[in-house]
């Protein structure tokens, strides 16, 4: 009966209830939108970083710490083979590839410019460059003296697929070397600055250019990026046990800025949650206080018949909780509909300094819905605490005299 009274009281003053529900639903939708945006932003940042650098990398400590001299960080083919074999033995590894990078000059008779050359294993599962090719085609297994240049770099050089350019750099022993390659394609890259300097080459070509059979780093892809720490620890143990003097680093260790980005977004979410909680708290507090005060005589009557204070208190809390649950349920339905519609429309924007427009999406997960539900329920219940307590403590005679 107490539950019945509470539920019926929720809808007793429909206008007032509608106002409370509107505040709760709007707050809920705003909160879900913020959390959905943050979740999607963090996920896309994490995915792009892990795609770019691999979930794990294995290289010398000197390379990671920038303490190497010259090319003393290179990994010989035998060690590479042992690391690759050890990596594939670990659970959750989805791909393994390796790179050899260099810095040099690129150009033709008309002029030259700096290039950051990346020697890659073409057709690697880990780094799929095909989807960012803007013109021509990506490198494939048959590629040798070919390059895929950043679109901005190609424009700077005035070349297009099919043209030839010269590459010059120092070899690992410090001598000068140069070669002519054919431009096979152009890629767009997330960062415009890097797009103006980046060139991709088959790793076998880069090794010949640098006159080495070594590689710089091994990149490992995982089925679940979130397990990077565990896999890195297991791999490091194998490396140490087998006497391979290399270290494994996770994508987070390689991109320390991610933690700052994550902290910023989490703080942003926390502030949004707090703001909505405060908004709901005061709105519901005002409505419940008026509503409860209007029912003083009823409270007096119920108490006069022997209803314990605790039951009166519980009844008011239940009423507030019902309001919160109904509001949260409506908010959840509306939020899901809005997120699905928003994502279906497909908004994009190009961040400053970026070359590729990015999709603005709102993430939809259990966390995105559950956190607002908890926020709404807690703030609604907190807002009901004082008026409920006050009403349950009111003197019966005074309550019965209320109009």
């Amino acid at each position: 009966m107490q539950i019945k009274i509470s539920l019926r009281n929720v809808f007793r003053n429909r206008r007032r209830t509608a106002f409370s529900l509107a505040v709760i639903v709007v707050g809920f939708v705003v909160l879900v939108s913020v959390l959905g945006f943050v979740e999607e932003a963090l996920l896309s940042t994490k995915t792009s970083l892990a795609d770019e650098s691999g979930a794990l990398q294995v290289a010398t400590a000197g390379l990671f710490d920038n303490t190497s001299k010259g090319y003393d960080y290179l990994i010989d083919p035998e060690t590479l083979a042992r690391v690759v074999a050890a990596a594939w033995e670990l659970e959750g590894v989805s791909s393994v590839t390796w790179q050899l990078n260099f810095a040099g000059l690129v150009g033709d008779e008309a002029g030259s410019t700096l290039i950051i050359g990346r020697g890659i294993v073409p057709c690697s599962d880990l780094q799929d460059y095909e989807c960012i090719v803007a013109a021509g085609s990506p490198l494939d297994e048959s590629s040798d003296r070919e390059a895929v240049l950043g679109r901005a770099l190609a424009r700077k050089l005035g070349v297009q697929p099919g043209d030839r350019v010269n590459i010059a750099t120092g070899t690992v022993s410090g001598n000068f070397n140069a070669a002519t390659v054919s431009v096979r394609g152009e890629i767009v890259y997330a960062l415009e600055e890097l797009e103006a300097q980046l060139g991709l080459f088959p790793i076998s070509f880069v090794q010949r250019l640098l006159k080495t059979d070594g590689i710089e780093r091994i990149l490992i892809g995982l089925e679940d990026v979130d397990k990077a720490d565990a896999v890195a620890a297991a791999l490091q143990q194998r490396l140490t046990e087998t006497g391979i003097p290399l270290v494994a680093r996770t994508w987070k260790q390689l991109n320390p800025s991610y933690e700052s980005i994550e902290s910023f977004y989490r703080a942003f979410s926390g502030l949004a949650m707090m703001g909505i909680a405060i908004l709901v708290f005061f709105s519901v507090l005002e409505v419940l206080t008026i509503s409860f005060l209007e029912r003083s005589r009823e409270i007096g009557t119920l108490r006069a018949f022997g209803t314990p204070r605790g039951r009166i208190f519980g009844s008011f809390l239940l009423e507030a909780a019902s309001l919160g649950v109904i509001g949260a349920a409506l908010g959840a339905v509306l939020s899901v509909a809005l997120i699905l519609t928003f994502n279906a429309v497909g908004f994009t924007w190009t961040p400053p300094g970026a070359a590729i427009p990015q999709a603005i999406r709102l993430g939809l997960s259990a966390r995105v819905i559950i956190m607002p539900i908890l926020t709404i329920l807690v703030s609604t219940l907190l807002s009901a605490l004082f008026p409920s307590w006050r009403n349950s403590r009111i003197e019966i005679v005074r309550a019965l005299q209320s109009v």
Partner: protein
Amino acid sequence: MENTSQFCHERGLPFLEARALSKTYQVGSSTVHALREVDFAAMQGDFVVINGPSGSGKTTFLNLISAIDRPSEGEVLIQGVSTNTLSERQLAQLRKDKIGLIFQTFNLIPVLSAAENAEYPLLLQRRPKIERAERVRSMLAEVGLGELGRRRPNELSGGQRQRIAIARALITRPKLVLADEPTANLDSETGAQVMDLMRKLNEEHCVVLLVVTHDPAVTKYAKRQIRIHDGRLIEGGQP
């Protein structure tokens, strides 16, 4: 309503006693004496009407007897137990089990139906569902509203509401029923019907009935009349 003839055998035995009952209120810097050293006793089966001008202390007296308020001095004994010795929880228990209250403004819970309003005290007593349903059915029939149990209070007339309030007050078979101006908001015909019903309940169920009223028509129903004036009780004898 089930016959409470077992209780009727105790007709004439002391049930309720007020000893030197006083109530004072502090209004600003002055002290208001709402009730001054009132002595009163009611036997089982009594039907007492309490008269007096407005502000004389009638309702205060009823509040103290019904244990919804505590005296400043003196004590109320119900079946020999002083309410002063009882905790808040025990007072709630006492009201729940032994006292029925009827208010001038009916005080029905608007979100509950007539039947649910009548049922409420039984829920407080944690009576089984079947027993509750049976008692509600028989009590509503007794007050002549057997067909209107599903209606909400705002769908009932004043007289019907007061009958539901009476049903609610009596459904737990209390030994003491206190009514504060039960006919004040009713027309004379409906008021007479309500008082007929109350007299019937008093006679058939041996309920101790204390009725505060200004209405001379109500007074004639009582077996005994008392008058309160300026917080002091004046025994009026037979009405």
